[in-house]
């Protein structure tokens, strides 16, 4: 029971990070129908920007953790957004209207480019970050000596994710920008016929996805304490899996898929084997795709008339 609870907490934390990244995949897919394979690397860039910001703040003597963390988050979101915006501008927009595979190939190219760019600038070795936040609560202690703990970092990740999700859902549902994004997702020609600037709305989508990925990158860095140039690949593929699992194109689906994937990984590692956790995650994806090709919350593709 204690062990189960501990894995549940770990799974939720990991799932939150997956969910935040998965939103970027699902939104871009929803609005322009392409898989942005560079999104995982945008997450990695976000992690690096956070790392640099922490170090600079450390040198500058700003060590009060809540303040430092807030500043780092803002910096990471702003700069990562610029990366997200630029990727769309240089690699995808010129290809709009060309054949369907073109932007996909371009995305793979962007992914390779970003990895090599960071590798050249930062080196290939993992960069460590000394623990920023330490400690946590002991929730339970069993007679056998196993303790269930939730660290402050885990609490922060889960709370932050819940807050961001709520804010983000409100933005999409209630604001004019959100309505414009949904309009572009549903019918770009009609959106332009009511005066929506479609290009700008697509850019906004990339900026928002990148900002959420930057938060995920910061959280990941704070939780695991290391980042390297290749980190975005595996985490990105996992988050993409989460988006597909939940139903690509669906925002609640991305969140649900992320959480499920985090839980699957945590429980599989906890009860079976750590080595095969990726097999479990992708195996579940295969099963879902066989029995529910549009994902858990996705809408079946309807032929347009």
């Amino acid at each position, binding site marked *: 029971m204690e062990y189960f609870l501990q894995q549940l907490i770990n799974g939720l934390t990991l799932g939150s990070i997956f969910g935040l990244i998965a939103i970027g995949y699902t939104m871009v897919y929803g609005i322009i129908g392409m898989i942005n394979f560079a999104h995982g690397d945008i997450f990695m860039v976000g992690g690096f920007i956070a790392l640099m910001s922490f170090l600079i703040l450390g040198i500058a003597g700003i060590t009060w953790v809540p303040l430092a963390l807030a500043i780092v988050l803002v910096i990471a979101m702003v700069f990562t957004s610029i990366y997200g915006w630029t990727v769309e501008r240089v690699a995808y927009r010129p290809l709009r209207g060309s054949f369907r595979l073109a932007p996909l190939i371009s995305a793979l190219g962007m992914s390779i480019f970003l990895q090599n760019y960071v590798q050249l600038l930062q080196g290939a070795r993992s960069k460590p970050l000394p623990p920023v936040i330490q400690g946590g609560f002991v929730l339970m202690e069993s007679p056998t000596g196993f303790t269930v703990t939730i660290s402050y970092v885990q609490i922060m990740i889960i709370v932050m994710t819940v807050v961001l999700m709520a804010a983000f859902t409100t933005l999409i549902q209630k604001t*004019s920008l959100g*309505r*414009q994004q*949904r*309009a572009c997702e*549903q*019918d770009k*020609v*009609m*959106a*332009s*016929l*009511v*005066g*929506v*600037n*479609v290009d700008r709305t697509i850019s906004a989508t990339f900026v928002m996805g990148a900002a959420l990925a930057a938060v995920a990158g910061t959280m990941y860095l704070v939780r695991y304490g290391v980042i390297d140039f290749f980190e975005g690949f595996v985490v990105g593929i996992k988050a993409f899996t989460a988006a597909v699992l939940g139903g690509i194109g669906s925002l609640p689906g991305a969140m649900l898929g992320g959480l499920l994937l985090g839980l699957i990984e945590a429980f599989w590692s906890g009860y079976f084997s750590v080595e095969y956790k990726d097999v479990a995650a992708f195996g579940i994806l295969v099963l879902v795709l066989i029995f529910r090709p549009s994902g858990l919350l996705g809408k079946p593709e309807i032929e347009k008339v």
Partner: protein
Amino acid sequence: MALLSISGVHTFYGAIEALKGVDMEVEEGEIVTLIGANGAGKSTLLMTICGNPRAARGSIQFDGRDITTTATNQIIRRGIAQAPEGRRIFPRMTVLENLQMGALSADPAYFEEDLNRVYELFPRLKERQIQRGGTLSGGEQQMLAIGRALMSRPRLLLLDEPSLGLAPMIVKQIFHVVAEINEKQGVTVFLVEQNAFHALRLAHRAYVMVTGEITLTGTGQELLANEEVQAAYLEGGHG
């Protein structure tokens, strides 16, 4: 100076020339109709006015300014609204959200006033406010498409076959509303129709289009009485 003047417009879809040098004008305050068979290029003309697809040659002037190469969303902001072919309601948005989208290019200060006016014209839309656009009936979707176009406070309203696929009762209601919008709110209307009888009766002036070219023009009454028009578009009674 006409509100909208189109001169020598050619439009292509790939290698197919859909418009072959169209000239026409719409004066402020008029209802002008364009009739023609399926595939004549009527919808293409309306879309070309809005810049999608672009005219390959020729020029389009709106309110004295050239809009031939203006971006679609900017053309809309200058006061043209379109209820396009197929209605193109945002299917997963509510009726109210669809109307809010329509109001995107209008001054937000007028939103409540405009919303109430649309609800007065189409009380059904008010009843269905929180229903998703995709779940509406064809007639309701057409009302919503017109309502959405009106929410931008257009000076020129482009209507593409509002009667298509609708029951005669609904068609009558929609044409009645179009006349009312024109008379009471002074909105200039450019109406594309296959339902030539209704359209010609409603319109001050009319054009006939055959395979991408304007072949005839005159007042609505003149074209109603024209033998060619009768033979080609009015045969088989008054739909």
